[in-house]
């Protein structure tokens, strides 16, 4: 790292003096810090991409370091300030502070034609795109087909239960001694919020929901209060395990599919990156009867077909990188449908890179995507989960209140609304 600093300094000096010579003759090493140390499919996808790229560009080496997400974010926050950040690193589009402070390289020169427009949009800040949107995801409601069958419940054709049906399902499940839904917010600021924000989105519709998050509609709006009260009533009916507040993301996966087993699990469609691992690495058991249903209809909703799609894990480039051209070259190597397909095949999550699902080769992936396609049929999308849209105090309060306290039954709807309104 120190060498990077020093050589960066020297390069700066040389550049200022106008002696920036052809660097191509030298071997270039790019550093890359990434999340996904435990998410084998994504990690191997990136490693394969690096190997291919290095084979095609023998003068450029890419050195990845794999982190846990929280550790990565903490390291980046300090490293960026210290001028010791890597050339390429993992980011999600909500991290506007990177753009605000000029840390990110403008990626306009890339081949954006190969990227889904909404994914580019998610990464566009003040007119310029900054991120390579590898991962995209929708919020999905997973369930255990066998358990549902045991309870004698059948889903309607559109896979969406009515509010009453959903509540009845919770009660039946409880009565049968099965936790209705696995979920945990022990190490993530968003899983608990899925319940509320999907409900709010359906209730308000895309436009008003966006305004709500921006603070243009108050949280004390009766529609919001009504919806939150409904979510709270689900929680009060015993929807979530008692350990909800301390359960970690990975534990929640295991709670759902292995031990003790829950009926449902609400999660981003990147469920696969953990669940499709080997069982001894936290994956679901072989032959697990995975099903996906729609988020239930919300009482008085204006748009029960509305749902969230988000750009997730992406790569961005350090504005201070000494080798921007090499970084761009590396990024461009991702931007073709073949790579997009390879992502779908291997990672089994949606991607912001244009791909052709029909050309997928992996049967398990194809099966999974057909389920995703079924729930997404006819959907209207809102881009981004709330914490990707919010920042500062509202984000912190939202995380504490809507992600954690409300589903845990630790705060009344009235107080929650009051705190949120006060935060803007």
């Amino acid at each position: 790292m120190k060498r990077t600093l020093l050589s960066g300094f020297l390069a700066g000096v040389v550049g200022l003096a106008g002696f920036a010579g052809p660097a191509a003759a030298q071997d270039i090493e790019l550093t890359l810090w990434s999340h996904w140390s435990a998410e084998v499919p994504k990690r191997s996808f990136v490693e394969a991409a690096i190997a291919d790229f290095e084979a095609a560009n023998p003068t450029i080496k890419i050195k990845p370091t794999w982190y846990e997400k929280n550790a990565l974010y903490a390291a980046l926050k300090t490293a960026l300030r210290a001028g010791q950040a890597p050339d390429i690193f993992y980011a999600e589009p909500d991290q506007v502070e990177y753009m605000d402070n000029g840390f990110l390289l403008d990626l306009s020169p890339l081949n954006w034609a190969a990227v889904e427009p909404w994914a580019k949009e998610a990464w566009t800040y003040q007119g310029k795109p900054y991120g390579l949107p590898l991962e995209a995801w929708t919020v999905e409601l997973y369930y255990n087909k066998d358990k549902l069958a045991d309870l004698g419940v059948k889903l309607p054709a559109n896979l969406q239960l009515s509010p009453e049906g959903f509540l009845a399902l919770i009660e039946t499940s409880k009565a049968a001694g099965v936790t209705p839904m696995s979920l945990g917010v022990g190490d993530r600021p968003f899983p608990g919020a899925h319940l509320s924000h999907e409900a709010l989105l359906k209730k308000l519709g895309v436009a008003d929901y966006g305004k709500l998050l921006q603070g243009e509609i108050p949280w004390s709006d009766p529609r919001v209060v009504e919806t939150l009260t409904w979510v709270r009533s689900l929680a009060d009916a015993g929807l979530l395990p008692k350990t909800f507040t301390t359960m970690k993301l990975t534990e929640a996966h295991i709670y759902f599919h292995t031990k003790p087993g829950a009926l449902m699990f609400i999660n981003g469609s990147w469920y696969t990156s953990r669940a499709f691992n080997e069982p001894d690495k936290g994956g679901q058991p072989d032959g697990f009867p995975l099903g996906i249903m729609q988020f239930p209809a919300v009482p008085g909703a204006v748009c029960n077909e509305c749902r969230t799609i988000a750009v997730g894990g992406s790569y961005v480039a350090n504005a201070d990188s000494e080798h921007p051209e090499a970084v761009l070259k590396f990024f461009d190597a991702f931007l073709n449908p073949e790579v997009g397909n390879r992502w779908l095949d291997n990672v089994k999550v949606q991607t912001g890179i244009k791909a052709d699902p029909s050309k997928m080769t992996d049967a398990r992936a194809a099966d999974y995507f057909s389920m995703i396609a079924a729930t997404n049929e006819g959907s209207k999308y809102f881009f981004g989960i709330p914490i990707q849209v919010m920042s500062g105090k509202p984000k912190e309060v939202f995380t504490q209140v809507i992600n954690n306290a409300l589903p845990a039954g630790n705060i009344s709807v009235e107080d929650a609304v009051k705190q949120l309104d006060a935060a803007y």
Partner: protein
Amino acid sequence: MAAGGAARPHDEGLRRPWGAITAFLLPALLVYAALTAYPAFRTLWNSFHEVLPRRETFIGLANYAELIQDEIFWKAVRNTFIWACASPLIEVAVATLLALALYAKVPGARFFRIAWFTPVLMSYIVVGILWAWIYNYDWGPINVALRAVGLGDWAQPWLGQPDTALPALIFVTSWMWVGFNMVVMLAALHSLPREVIEAAELDNCGWGQKLVFIILPMVRATLLNLVVLSFIGKMKIFDLVWITTKGNPLWSTETVSTYVYKRAFEWTTFDLGYPSTIAAVWFVIVLAAVLGLTHLFRLRDKLEY
């Protein structure tokens, strides 16, 4: 001659050996200046600025104005104070009882003393992980024990509820520090003159009376020192919270330390000015509290930390 201005007896030798004095003090003062004094002043300076990675803007008292209205900060202050006030009382009270038990010549006193002291040796990280397991809802020993004795309804996700999380963590720090306080108390008890206690026995004092009228007043200074020491320690608390709850749920375990850290290194801005403001204000609060405590105990001269 140099000696004329000397204001104290026992000045040294022919000349004040300024060379030697400087040489001895310089390294310590340099480290102090560079890594304690300068950072402290810089924090103060920061607090009047918005400190972003590539620019610093003077914003006067804006940070302070924001801080006054920052409910999370005040919540953190409240939590920290609850912690800093509850802990010393619990720790010192339990420690005194245990020390008295050992003082009464129980067999195996040495073993007890060493065993009780061990929690203090572990880092908060280790302790945090251990206790997160102990508080685990499904298989933590506490809930397992409750279920085993038929009190399964009392089983709680102790660290996951706003009203149990903070007491649970306070309990952990007490677990950790009781042994330390006990050892200090025991040392203080052993340093008491035997004659006084024996005299009290001749005066036909019972154990309880002896404790209240003779022993406790004589170890008063130690007791108060321990209280202040524990108070200061809890005002700094960070590691334990960070490793267990990170201030959750609903800021019920947020301490000033964790909040400063969050605002400085986890918040969605890169601003270091605001967290510096928290630090500066907190510094004043801590200082005032410690001075207040010492004044309260009228230990101004005797206080040792």
